[in-house]
């Protein structure tokens, strides 16, 4: 599904790093000499409340603005987005374009027969894997779930190189040019305490991303298969 332009909708819950990954994706594209624009969308900032971020990534300059209503990539950071309807967009595939990609963080198959019918008709590819378990296993914290999700996406569609990603992750966690909300800043210091050292945090994040790249190699996006359930 190689395209000039990817319009992505990232849905998750407050505290999972949805907006953070949107920023890192943007920087990684910038580092790769490509273009990206991002739009965070959330109500009051609180943990476990629905959060959506939209990312446009392209080899050409991007003019359009606003939320992505018709995505060709959907990332779901938490199964409750689907199973509990914790989302601004329901059903979760609303607006999905034909021949598109859905990545879901889940420990089990969350697709209902109706979802399978619609997604099959759209010729979508759905990749389900337990990103949270992977984050716990490798980084020792579920806070690296977003890295696993971003890693899987970039492993699947190869928009940027591993160097571009590492640079962007470094910028995010070590750089000073980044502005986040107060809540995110507090969360960051909690993460830092857990990891003790920023460098360690960085290398653990990169380990998670490398692992997802490996896992992504087992997925053939042109196989016509609807669901890929990847074991962690």
């Amino acid at each position: 599904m190689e395209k000039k332009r990817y319009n992505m909708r990232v849905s998750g819950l407050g505290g999972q790093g949805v907006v953070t990954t949107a920023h890192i994706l943007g920087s990684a594209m910038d580092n790769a000499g490509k273009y990206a624009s991002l739009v965070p969308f959330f109500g009051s900032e609180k943990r476990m409340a629905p959060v959506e971020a939209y990312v446009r990534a392209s080899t050409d300059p991007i003019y359009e603005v606003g939320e992505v209503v018709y995505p060709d990539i959907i990332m779901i950071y938490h199964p409750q987005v689907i199973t509990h309807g914790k989302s601004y967009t329901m059903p979760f595939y609303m607006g999905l374009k034909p021949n598109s990609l859905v990545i879901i963080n889940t420990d089990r198959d969350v697709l209902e027969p109706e979802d399978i019918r619609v997604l099959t008709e759209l010729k979508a590819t759905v990749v389900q894997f337990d990103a949270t378990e992977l984050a716990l296993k490798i980084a020792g914290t579920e806070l690296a779930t977003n890295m696993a999700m971003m890693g899987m996406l970039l492993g699947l569609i190869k928009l940027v190189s591993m160097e571009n990603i590492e640079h962007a992750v470094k910028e995010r966690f070590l750089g000073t040019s980044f502005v986040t909300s107060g809540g995110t800043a507090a969360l960051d210091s909690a993460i830092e305490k857990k990891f003790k050292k920023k460098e360690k945090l960085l290398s653990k994040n990169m380990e998670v991303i490398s692992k997802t790249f490996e896992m992504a190699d087992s997925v053939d996006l042109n196989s016509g298969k609807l669901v890929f359930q990847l074991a962690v």
Partner: protein
Amino acid sequence: MSQNARPKLEKKIVDAGYLLKEAPRTQQFITGAQAMAEAVKRANVDMAIAYPITPQSEVMHLVGDIYAQGHIKEYYRAEEELGTMSAIAGAARAGVRMFTATSGPGLLRGLEAIASWPGHRIPAVLGVLTRVVNAPLSIQPDNIEIAYLMHCGALVLHAENQQDTFDMTLAAFAIAEKVDVYIPVAVATEGFFVTHAKGYVNTTPEDMALTPIDPTAAPVPAMDNETPPARIQRDAPVQKSNFMSYLIHAVWQQEIWDSNKRSMKYIYEYLGGPIEVQDPEADVFVVASGCAAAQAREAHRYAQEEGLSVGFIKVRSIRPFPVDEIREAVKNAKKLIVPEHNIIGWLCKEVKASIPNSGIVVEGPRVYGGMTLPVELIMAEIYNALGIEHNMKL
């Protein structure tokens, strides 16, 4: 007001032509709100008056910062928008360069005073950062307020992005104060989509400022302790007979709408003209202003990639409206698609009124309540216009 010690800044004074067209530029990655404030910083503004409302608050907060840095002589927060806009008129009559900005409900609250600015020849610059005004109220960037604004007599420029916001705001001061114009200029752009989003903006040097206002080069003399407000004294309509009041009203209003038209040459000079046209030979055109023009530009690119005969027209100036320019640009067109961020389609009505064959104009697509305007909706209209089968599952 000015108790705080603020630095005295030394700036190189240049004229508008140099500042807008020749001055060196450096690229910044900033929000639309920052772009507007950066323009105000370089415009040698004497005084700014603010009353906060989302999403404008970001702009006037930043203008407050540049006051503290010494770029503006006076700044205060007014009691509400009618007070703000009335005070702008009072201060401008004393011959100083004025700036304020507002959004949606704030604009409508201030509109009573704003509607009287042109007749009183107030060359102020007004930033309009659009926001829903109709029920149910929200803070999102619907732009229906421009429909109310565009019949006041002021110039109305509509910025597509952060760069436009910078250039149009700077040009607005120069155009407003031309002696054959001398009416207010509103620079509108969409809240959030532009004001709170970052884009690349080429800005002029910070230590270079626009020539100060010359209150003697005005069709109506500025008042001070020795110069009474002669025009109001001479013409005061409410004190005259009905016949005289009709006559005076006619003279003032004809004067300002002529001024409005005369500003067109400066829109050419400083902003490259009131419209931008891509693919002038196309069968179908997407005509848009403001943020909708960004979405239309994207649709135009998609259409090009698919080899479709689609052109793009961006309308920079809503007042004066480029009637002749649009009529000429679309004289061979078969369909015009007018995407908008409001329910009534004020741009669509203006376009229809500009051409002899208004039946070729497609009403929309329109989104309301400040929703994003998906490029896919514009593409669907393009396929319809060209008679191309499509199934976008929209």
